[in-house]
């Protein structure tokens, strides 16, 4: 078994098989042969969460910068898509209290342009924020980025002629196929994957492990930090834009700072410093929250109504799971390892201990 898997050809075959299965499943879902809109929606949402979580992992897990600003960058991306893709004819109806800025009211962009614009704007803002803020260390950085994320939300609430303020924007055109979400997710995550394996990625990891040593090795700390931060923001913006088209509506409260904690949970669950772990966790968390829904419904066992089961229990269980995870499985599913055929077969053949032996990710 092990010999077989070390064979390049076998791996290639397995990979091709996998891609074919993956594509088939998506096509089947897309054409409504299997599953339904509910499942498609959750999967699309998971794909978006995967993009944003991997982007957050790039900054937090791989570069070791504790940033909690993801919600703000998502807001920029989401609003870019919302403002520019809503059909011109519907604008007046949506901006019914404060009319839209006359300049913006004439611009309608194709989805993909608006999406990329959102990503670039998010990256631009990240550079503007990053230049002063990235000098800060760990928890100071965390609270400063969280602050910026809130400032972005509050500004969006207040610039009513551009964002429609609290009323939000609705009637954002939706996407007919899952390929939009999964395609962009694959491209985005693939790009970040390439980045991390490149020399830049090695520099990021060096910064994570020891800033002083990294600097001594000739790594330009500042440049690499800003780079990681702004690329992370770019993809958070892309994720936000996709979220806008999935929900068909945006408003500032969607980007209240606790939203970032969801992504934090995902990267902790998946393993700080593991892309595949993050992706698995995105799907597990999104699906898990739906599966846990039965806790919210009244339960009758043997004719007795169990009073414990009522709305809110789901979130209590969810947060207890989170705490257990942080306390007892600090390395998450994957630690810093990536999923590979070798890992899977090793695991099955018992070559590595089934108890998790990965090293801790994160910063000291």
């Amino acid at each position: 078994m092990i010999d077989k898997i070390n064979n390049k050809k076998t791996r290639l075959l397995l990979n091709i098989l996998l891609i074919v299965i993956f594509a088939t499943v998506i096509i089947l879902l897309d054409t409504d042969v299997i599953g339904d809109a509910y499942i498609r929606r959750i999967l699309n949402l998971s794909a978006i969460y995967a993009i944003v979580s991997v982007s957050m992992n790039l900054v937090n897990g791989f570069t070791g910068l504790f940033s909690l600003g993801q919600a703000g960058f998502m807001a920029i991306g989401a609003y870019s898509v919302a403002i520019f893709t809503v059909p011109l004819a519907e604008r007046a109806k949506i901006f019914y209290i404060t009319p839209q800025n006359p300049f913006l009211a004439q611009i309608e962009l194709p989805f993909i342009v608006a999406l990329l614009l959102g990503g670039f704007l998010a990256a631009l803002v990240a550079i503007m924020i990053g230049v002063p803020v990235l000098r800060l260390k760990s928890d100071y950085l965390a609270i400063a980025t969280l602050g910026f994320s809130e400032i972005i939300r509050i500004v969006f609430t207040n610039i009513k002629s551009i964002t429609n303020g609290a009323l939000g924007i609705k009637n954002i055109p939706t996407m007919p196929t899952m390929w939009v979400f999964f395609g962009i997710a694959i491209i985005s995550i693939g790009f970040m994957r390439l980045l991390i394996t490149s020399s830049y990625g090695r520099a990021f990891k060096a910064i994570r492990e020891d800033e002083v040593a990294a600097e001594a090795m000739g790594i330009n700390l500042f440049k690499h930090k800003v780079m990681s931060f702004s690329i992370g923001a770019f993809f958070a913006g892309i994720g936000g834009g996709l979220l806008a088209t999935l929900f068909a509506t945006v408003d500032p409260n969607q980007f209240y700072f606790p939203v970032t904690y969801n992504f934090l949970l995902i990267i902790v669950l998946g393993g700080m410093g593991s892309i595949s772990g993050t992706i698995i966790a995105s799907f597990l968390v999104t699906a898990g929250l739906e599966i846990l829904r039965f806790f919210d419904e009244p339960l009758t066992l043997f004719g007795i109504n169990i009073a414990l089961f009522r709305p809110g229990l789901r979130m209590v269980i969810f947060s207890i799971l989170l705490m257990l995870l942080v306390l007892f499985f600090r390395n998450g599913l994957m630690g810093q390892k990536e999923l590979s055929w070798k890992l899977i077969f090793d695991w099955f053949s018992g070559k590595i201990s089934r108890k998790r032996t990965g090293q801790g990710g994160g910063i000291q």
Partner: protein
Amino acid sequence: MKKVLSLLLSLLMVLTLFTACSQPNNGGPSNQEPQTGGEEEPGTEEDVIKIGVFEPLTGMNGGGGQQELGGIQYANKMYPEVLGKKIELVVVDNKSDKGEATTAVTRLIEKDKVVAIIGSYGSAVSIAAGDIIKNAQIPAMGASCTNPMVTQGNPFYFRACFLDPFQGKVMATYAVEQGAKTAAVIMQNGDDYSVGLANFFIDAFKQLTGDPNSIVDVSEFQLNESDFNAILTNIKAKNPDVIFAPSAATTAPLIIKQARDLGIDALIMGGDTWENPALIDVAGEAAEGVVLSTFFDENDPVTNEAKKFVEGYKKELAGKEPIIPAVAALGYDAYILLRDAIERAGSTDGVAIRDALKATKDFEGVTGIINFTEEGDADKNLAVIKTIKDGQFVFVDSVEVQ
């Protein structure tokens, strides 16, 4: 390369797991007949018609959502059957969150195969769910979502309540009738209900007084804000005749109490969300004399249905809540409106129910005689004004606006 591809594996793993575990629940494609019921009671699935309810049971609007749900469940108890089949309510929590709301509604439609949907408290979540409802062609009935955007351009969304522009006008009319010349407005920055209603009030008030400077102060506060002293001190200096502060029942008592503590004696007014026992409970004596508009008055049942509802639901609530919340009455109305439409449609087909709803004529609900406008809004021109006296909501007046 190997590792890039391994990403796909992980995607796939979850994907297959997912389709595998969801498969038994929904035997086949989504455009099958609607009543493919739950798996637990295979024998009875033919006899059950499912109506979905999506309400915020937790989160910011958790309180209001639960009150509304109470009314819906009571209606279900009173009228448990339609077309000779039992009606089953499928309740999902949307956590007052748009993302949750869209998945919750999709779940209702696709997984639970409901034939119609009721909800939600809070317009933002209803707006978010609107497109899904429209595309799935499942009729939805809002109970207390008052924002115009909910039903606008959506032939499948109806609602049992009046709208914010109407409500804003009602309050402005009442204020002017009371002799108010100047008003101050406080709204929650970031809350669509509050901002919408406040703006409609401002427009109507300026129009009615004929004085563009009659609004002397407009202040905004933030989500989760507790301290209104600064805003209110500014307002006190301007000395307006009335203060209009549409806000959630969580913040309203704070505004009222701090205003009175600061020695402001202007008339304080709010919207329908204020008719909540929590307001009196929290603000105590300070709440005396506060004026609000609402949909329904339990002491003045306008129809026979209302009399029945008040008597029955009072008993149901005994010991839990001192008054019947207006949203419960609206929840009740939403349910019986839908049930009536399904009965008249004679089928559970979405379009048929929609057409039956549209054809609703002089329906006797708890909150009055109901017809629908072109947009699908309840055509009501009557609002109830209440005040708080001796720790009770008391009927003052009913205001009619054309």
